[in-house]
C-alpha cells in the first residue's frame, strides 16, 4: 500500500484561500469600482470582467483539486488504519489458537504422564516432567501476558466500567493468592481503611492490576515476611498501596521496573510483563502508579486512582 508521510491537512489553508479569497478579492474590486468609481484597470470593462471571472474560476478549480487530493489521502489513511486493525485482530486470533492449543495439549499430556495414567513413572522421570510443567506454565503466562498487553494497548474500547468497591475486589484478590502466600509462609495483611471506598472502572482489569502487585510482593518476599495491602481515600483520590518486606530495588533499577520484558531478578520466575500491564491498566483509569523502595527493607507500589466517577469516563 502507498506510503503516506505528508499531512493532507497542510494544504487545506491554500485550498481555502484559492476557493474563497480569490473570488472575494474579485468581489472587492467590483465593489470599489462601483461605489467610488475608481478603476485601476482602465480599459475595456468587458475584458477586465472576463479576466476576473477567469481568475476566480482558476482559483476555484485549483482549490477544488487540492481539496479532492486531501480527501483522497484521508480515504487511503482510513483504509490503511482498517487494514492495520484487521492485521492486529488476525494476529491475536492466530496467537490464541496456534499457541494456546498446543500448550493446552502439552500441559494435559504431561499431567497424564506425571499422574501415571499412561504407565509407571519413577522419581527421576517425575522430576524431569516437573521441570517441563514449569516451563509450560512459564510459556502460558508469557502468551497470556502478551495477549493481555495487546488487548490493553488496543485501547479502552472494551473497558467494562462500573462503580467498584475497592475493598471488595482487593479482598477477592487476597483470597486468590492466600494459598501461594501460605506456601511461602508469607503473611498478607489487609489494611482497608475505608470499606466503602469506590472508583469507576473495569473490575477485571483493576483486579488484574491488584493481583499483579500482590503476586510480585509475595514472589519477592522471603519466608516469614509480610505483604501489606492498604486502601484509603486521599482527597479526590483512592490509593492502593502494596508493600512488601522483600530485598528492595536499587535506585538505578527503579526506572526500568515498568518496561516490558524487564526482569530485574532473573532468578525469580516471571515474564517481565506484569508491571507493564499494571501500569497500562492504571493509566487507562486516569490513574498513576509509583514505587518507593529501600534496598534491604522492601518496596511499596502505590496506585492512585481518581474517585470522581466522571474523571475516568470518556
Amino acid at each position: 500500500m502507498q506510503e503516506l508521510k505528508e499531512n493532507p491537512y497542510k494544504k487545506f489553508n491554500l485550498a481555502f484561500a484559492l476557493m474563497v479569497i480569490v473570488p472575494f478579492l474579485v468581489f472587492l474590486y467590483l465593489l470599489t469600482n462601483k461605489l467610488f468609481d475608481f478603476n485601476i484597470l482602465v480599459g475595456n470593462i468587458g475584458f477586465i470582467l472576463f479576466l476576473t471571472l477567469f481568475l476566480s474560476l482558476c482559483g476555484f478549480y485549483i482549490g477544488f483539486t487540492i481539496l479532492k487530493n486531501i480527501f483522497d489521502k484521508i480515504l487511503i489513511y482510513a483504509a490503511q488504519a482498517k487494514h492495520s486493525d484487521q492485521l492486529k485482530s488476525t494476529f491475536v486470533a492466530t496467537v490464541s489458537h496456534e499457541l494456546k492449543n498446543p500448550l493446552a495439549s502439552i500441559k494435559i499430556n504431561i499431567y497424564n504422564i506425571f499422574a501415571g495414567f499412561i504407565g509407571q513413572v519413577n522419581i527421576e522421570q517425575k522430576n524431569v516432567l516437573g521441570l517441563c510443567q514449569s516451563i509450560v506454565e512459564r510459556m502460558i503466562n508469557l502468551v497470556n501476558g502478551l495477549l493481555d498487553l495487546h488487548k490493553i494497548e488496543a485501547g479502552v474500547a472494551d473497558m467494562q466500567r462500573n462503580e467498584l468497591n475497592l475493598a471488595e475486589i482487593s479482598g477477592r484478590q487476597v483470597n486468590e493468592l492466600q494459598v501461594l502466600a501460605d506456601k511461602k509462609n508469607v503473611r498478607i495483611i489487609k489494611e482497608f481503611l475505608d470499606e466503602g471506598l469506590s472508583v469507576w472502572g473495569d473490575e477485571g482489569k483493576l483486579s488484574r492490576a491488584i493481583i499483579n502487585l500482590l503476586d510480585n510482593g509475595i514472589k519477592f518476599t522471603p519466608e516469614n515476611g509480610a505483604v501489606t495491602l492498604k486502601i484509603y481515600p486521599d482527597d479526590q483520590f483512592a490509593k492502593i498501596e502494596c508493600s512488601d518486606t522483600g530485598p528492595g530495588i536499587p535506585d538505578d533499577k527503579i526506572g526500568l521496573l515498568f518496561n516490558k520484558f524487564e526482569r530485574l531478578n532473573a532468578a525469580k520466575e516471571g515474564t517481565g510483563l506484569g508491571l507493564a500491564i499494571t501500569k497500562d491498566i492504571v493509566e487507562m483509569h486516569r490513574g498513576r502508579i509509583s514505587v518507593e523502595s529501600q534496598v534491604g527493607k522492601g518496596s511499596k507500589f502505590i496506585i492512585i486512582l481518581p474517585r470522581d466517577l466522571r474523571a475516568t469516563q470518556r
Partner: protein
Amino acid sequence: MPEKAPPKILVIDDTKELVLGLATLLKAQGYQVVAAYDALFGVSLAHKEKPDLIILDIGLPAGGGFYVLRNLKDSVQTLDIPVLVLTAQQETDLEAKVKQMGAAAYLHKPFAPESLLVQVKEILK
C-alpha cells in the same frame, strides 16, 4: 443386577493431541470417551451416541463450536445433554455468550486438568 455403565463423554475438538490428553485423563477417572474432530461429525456423533456430557471446542472446522452448540440446543434429542465449552479465543464476553446459548460450564485453554475434572464431576453429579 447389572452394573451401571460409566458416564459417556463426547469430546469435540480439532486438536488431536488435546483430544488424546483429554481421553486419557477422563478414561483414567473411569469415564467412557468418544471423540469428534469437526463440527458436523460432532453433531452427528452427539445424536448417535447420546453422551452424558459434551466437551466442546469453539474454534472448530466445518461449522465452528457455536454451530454445534446451537444445533444441540435446538434438537429435542440433545437439548438436555450438558455442554462444557473449551476455547482458546480471547473475547471478553465469550463466557456469557456460550452460557446464554445453553452451555453448562466454560473453561479457557490452556486449563488446569484438575479444574476440568472438578467441572466434569460437578456437571455429572
